[in-house]
């Protein structure tokens, strides 16, 4: 071997490595396997190597040299350089944290901060649901159980359904909160911060219909005969049994992302239903009333319910919007310049906001100050 062979051999070995990983007869040794392939495909070795490299920041090193070279031309050029560095920096962060995602962060339902989750009963009465308390409520003949941030309605008996008049409850989850609703048909709705859901105590008739403002993850119990509708702002999503995310927090669009099954989305003003497949995002544009569908990295839209923020090439403004809802803090920008910077990475949702911001600062260089209930972006 010569130094000159490294590049060629590396390319060839990568292909061998992919080959080995894709084979079905895992575990069986083949004599002609390259030692490197064997090593790197040994469980966790590759991961360990990547982790070990995490401390070497090529972007920072590049930036240092660039800064020396360009000392005289600051201003605009520097802003451009910074933004491209920011774009690149998310990758290592993502890898560093991704294993922790696999480890499953336990979900903490309830609220951080002073605000309360409110349940409005069918008669208009409002009950504050303590974040972690256990509570039993009675609505007509229906028992409602609240426990550790989960509100559960007793399942419907087949004979009684269809005759009941529509009695609705509404759950309000404030900023900084997160709550889970188990509906009478067995469907589960996981409400994100700053969201509300209106739903019947029991589903009657030939459809199941709920109303959402904000963001929620739905796991709809299968029932081919009785479709489930989510009405969110000007949009209606029709499902039969599937899991998906609906978000009306966007200024410009209402978004639906599908993980499995299939759903139809239509604007209330139109009769045309758009079909959405797993892995797709359907976006209702508030301005022109159109629904557009495209392929996306679904985890970006659903990671929140696993206790993680996952940002993939998101702008700082979007990211801060999500953090402000979750931590119930106001975001103030010293200048607009940073808003459009892109960033990728995993952050833990239950971490203290200071820790989260420190992580962002570490990889982007953007500094934050916290004054009372405000995050000031420098």
């Amino acid at each position, binding site marked *: *071997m*010569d*130094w*000159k*062979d*490294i*590049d*060629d*051999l*590396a*390319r*060839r*070995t*990568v*292909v061998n*490595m*992919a*080959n080995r*990983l*894709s084979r*079905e007869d*895992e575990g069986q040794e083949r004599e002609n396997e390259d030692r*490197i392939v064997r*090593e*790197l*495909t*040994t*469980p*966790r*070795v*590759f*991961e360990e*190597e*990547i982790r*070990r*490299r995490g*401390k*070497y*920041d*090529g*972007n920072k*090193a*590049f930036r*240092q*040299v*660039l800064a020396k*070279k360009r000392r005289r031309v600051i201003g605009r050029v520097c802003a451009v350089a910074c*933004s*491209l560095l920011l*774009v*690149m920096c998310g*990758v290592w962060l993502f890898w560093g944290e*991704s294993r922790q995602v*696999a480890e499953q962060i336990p979900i903490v339902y309830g609220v951080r901060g002073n605000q309360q989750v409110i349940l409005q009963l069918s008669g208009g009465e409002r009950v504050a649901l303590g974040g972690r308390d256990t509570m039993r409520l009675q609505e007509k003949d229906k028992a409602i159980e609240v426990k550790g941030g989960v509100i559960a309605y007793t399942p419907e008996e087949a004979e009684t359904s269809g005759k009941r008049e529509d009695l609705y409850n509404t759950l309000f989850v404030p900023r900084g909160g997160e709550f889970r609703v188990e509906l009478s048909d067995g469907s589960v709705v996981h409400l994100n911060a700053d969201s509300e859901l209106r739903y019947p105590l029991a589903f009657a008739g030939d459809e199941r219909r709920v109303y959402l403002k904000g963001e929620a993850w739905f796991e709809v119990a299968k029932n081919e005969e009785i479709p489930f509708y989510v009405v969110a702002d000007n949009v209606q999503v029709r499902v039969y049994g599937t899991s998906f995310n609906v978000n009306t927090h966007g200024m410009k669009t209402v978004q639906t992302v599908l993980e*499995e099954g299939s759903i139809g989305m239509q604007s209330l003003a139109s009769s045309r239903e758009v079909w959405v497949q797993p892995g797709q995002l359907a976006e209702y544009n508030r301005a022109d009333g159109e629904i557009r569908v495209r392929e996306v*990295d*679904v*985890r970006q839209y659903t990671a929140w319910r696993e206790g993680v923020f996952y940002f993939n*090439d998101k702008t700082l403004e979007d990211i801060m919007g999500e953090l402000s809802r979750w931590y119930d803090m106001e975001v103030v920008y010293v200048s607009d310049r940073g808003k459009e910077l*892109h960033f990728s990475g995993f952050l833990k949702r239950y971490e203290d906001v200071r820790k989260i911001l420190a992580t962002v600062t570490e990889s982007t260089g953007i500094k934050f100050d916290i004054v009372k209930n405000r995050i000031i972006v420098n």
Partner: protein
Amino acid sequence: MNALEFIEGVNKKNDRALKKLYDHYYASLCGYVEKLLNDSGIAEDIVQECLIKVWNTGVTFSDMKALSAWLYKSVYHAAVSVLRERVSLERLQDGSRLLEDEEEAAQALALREEVITYFYEILNQLPGQQRDILLFTLQGHKVQDIASMLSVSENSVKTQKKRAYQYIREHFDANKLHFLLTMIFPKNQFS
């Protein structure tokens, strides 16, 4: 930017190409020197010094091969001289020829680092599920476990694995010589 454009950019000291130079080589060279010397602080100094040479001197390269060879060889020699100094400082006799006789082993180690870099880069451009499946496989999970973790069928895991392999094979096809870095972030962030 393909391999040719990249090499041309490096030769012309174009910032965009130099940025890619850092993306592709910085962490792997550092990791490499760290392994040779068992010291991460010095590793960064050595690598930075070597990369700045590419930037500030007239050195040019005919192709990727030449560039990889030059970089690894340079940091290897720098590491050896650091080691020599250390040894003479400590007045040890035994370790003095430690790395000189082991150029072969040092090359194999360099190859390993390059494989990690290329594999990591290609992983990052695979479609999400294929990437996850390869990642889980690298963690030692079996097809069966992966299928249940992702709630898909075992057959679909196998199919995705095969697709990932196809993709990787095509991209490293020696005739095409795709240069991967361009595709990690598909949008042009440099304009």
